[in-house]
């Protein structure tokens, strides 16, 4: 308890002595803003103050003394000096480990390998540095939803520069990446489904070491998540051809930022991506068409089975075994789509054939369930008719009994 009290007093004394915040809080506009923003900054919570970056002496309220060069005051940090300034602490393992033992300390080393870092080192001060992404004075942890580098906000943060045609003009860079990314399956997973593990800019380009993946490493970058596709692609006839063409593996068919949900339409027909290189009448075109046909056949068979199973379930029939089998069938459909990346009909045929067997079985199960339902309906109808006939007979019998007293009262019938 005594220890806690001492700690609290020490903390209070430390803040009471921060003349930077004390004075700047009383100022207005641009001079007040850093002091206000700093209240939310992670560094403040860790006990750091303005003077740790800007220099000076926070312990004195004398303005001239606190901001004197003699006491190390640096004032506004030049853009070219920001990464090194941050690295003073963030590359110091001993210091960082006191606050966050698991945090990496190689951000600056990575930054120096990035396009941003190289540009800055070459004297281009417009190149992004730490504060352009992490903000300044109100820096928050990455997992904080308000942080500009939180997974949900990162694409917009990158887009602040990369979607700005004026800023990108001198680098001759396209500015449509964010617009394309927002149409992709990755964006859908991230923004619409809230899946924070979905890929965004840094997943493929890196964060501190941000750079475009080289053509030769595109498949490896995609393969960090899509492992099987990478394996199949590397063994496929396309790999050496694309490499010789200087084309970037996966992106040849799927694009890079605007990756949409793949479908069999990508293989054959008006929206085929294969026709970029293969004439429909060529061997490659025929292979693509055959693969599309196989996948389409399985998909249609599974849809048909789904339909009959749904009707059976809606009729109150127990079809859980068939539903389980159907999941297996759908799995084969997914496997057949994966197998496309081997670019061989035989590779696609195997899961398709397995799936067709399952689709046949589940269709039969659904058909049997509906036959059973129809038998039950016939049985019910027969029971109802019997009951109705019995009831009608009873009604007639009661009526005939009701008539009898009249016959007794008037035996002559006059």
């Amino acid at each position, binding site marked *: 308890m005594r220890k806690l009290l001492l700690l609290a007093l020490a903390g209070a004394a430390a803040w009471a002595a921060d003349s930077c915040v004390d004075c700047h809080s009383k100022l207005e506009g641009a001079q007040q803003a850093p002091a206000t923003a700093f209240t939310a900054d992670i560094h403040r919570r860790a006990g750091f103050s303005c003077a740790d970056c800007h220099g000076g002496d926070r312990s004195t309220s004398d303005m001239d003394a606190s901001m004197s060069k003699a006491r190390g005051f640096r004032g506004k940090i030049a853009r070219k000096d920001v990464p090194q300034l941050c690295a003073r602490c963030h590359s110091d393992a001993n210091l960082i480990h006191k606050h966050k033992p698991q945090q990496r300390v190689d951000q600056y080393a990575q930054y120096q390998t990035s396009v941003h870092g190289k540009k800055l080192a070459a004297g281009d001060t417009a190149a992004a540095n730490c504060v352009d992404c992490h903000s300044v004075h109100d820096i928050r942890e990455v997992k904080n939803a308000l942080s500009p580098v939180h997974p949900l906000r990162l694409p917009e943060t990158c887009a602040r520069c990369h979607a700005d045609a004026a800023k990108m003009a001198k680098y001759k860079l396209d500015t449509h990446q964010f617009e394309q990314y927002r149409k992709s399956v990755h964006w859908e997973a991230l923004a619409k489904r809230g899946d924070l593990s979905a890929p965004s800019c840094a997943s493929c380009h890196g964060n501190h070491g941000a750079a475009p993946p080289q053509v030769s490493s595109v498949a490896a970058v995609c393969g960090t998540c*899509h492992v099987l596709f990478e*394996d199949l692609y590397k063994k496929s006839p396309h790999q050496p051809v694309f490499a010789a063409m200087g084309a970037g593996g996966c992106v040849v068919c799927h694009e890079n930022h605007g990756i949409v949900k793949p479908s069999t339409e990508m293989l054959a027909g008006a929206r085929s991506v294969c026709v970029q290189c293969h004439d429909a009448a060529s061997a490659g075109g025929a292979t693509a068409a055959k693969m599309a046909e196989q996948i389409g056949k399985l998909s249609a068979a599974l849809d048909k089975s789904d339909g009959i199973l749904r009707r059976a379930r809606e009729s*109150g029939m127990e*079809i*859980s075994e068939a539903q389980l089998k159907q*999941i297996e069938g759908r799995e084969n459909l997914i*496997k057949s789509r994966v197998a496309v990346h081997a670019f061989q009909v035989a590779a696609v045929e195997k899961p398709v054939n397995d799936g067709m067997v399952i689709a046949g079985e589940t269709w039969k199960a659904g058909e049997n369930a509906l036959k059973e339902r129809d038998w039950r309906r016939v049985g019910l109808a027969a029971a109802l008719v019997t009951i109705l006939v019995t009831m009608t007979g009873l009604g007639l019998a009661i009526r005939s009994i009701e008539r009898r007293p009249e016959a007794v009262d008037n035996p002559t019938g006059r």
Partner: protein
Amino acid sequence: MAEERRTLVRWLLGGGFSASVVSFLYPAIRFMSPPAVPDAAVNEVSAGRVQDFKPNSGKIVKFGSRPALLIRAGDSEWRAYSAICTHLNCTVQFQESSHQIWCACHNGFYDLNGKVVSGPPPNPLEEYAVRVRGDEVVISRRA
């Protein structure tokens, strides 16, 4: 008086007959076109007997109309998860060699806590509770 009583009995009989017809026909009509209701939720299933599972093995068991993966990680260490991969709904399986849960569709791996290790699955597997009652292994949804 007798006439009035007879009329009353006739009304009662007629009413009863009509009500009976309606009560027979209504369930029959409902049987013919039942309302679309979702599957009844299954909260607990018996997965089998303890001796059916050897240590370091996994088995897919039926949990309602969906598959569940029961893993016997050690002699008395049991785990159960929904066997539906969180990526594209394929059925996952226990891989004895790596001691992990594997999805064959896109090579996704989960650890024995159901957390994603590698590959495209976005979320962990739904975990079920496992209890051993006598020599019976029971899987149930977590409250």
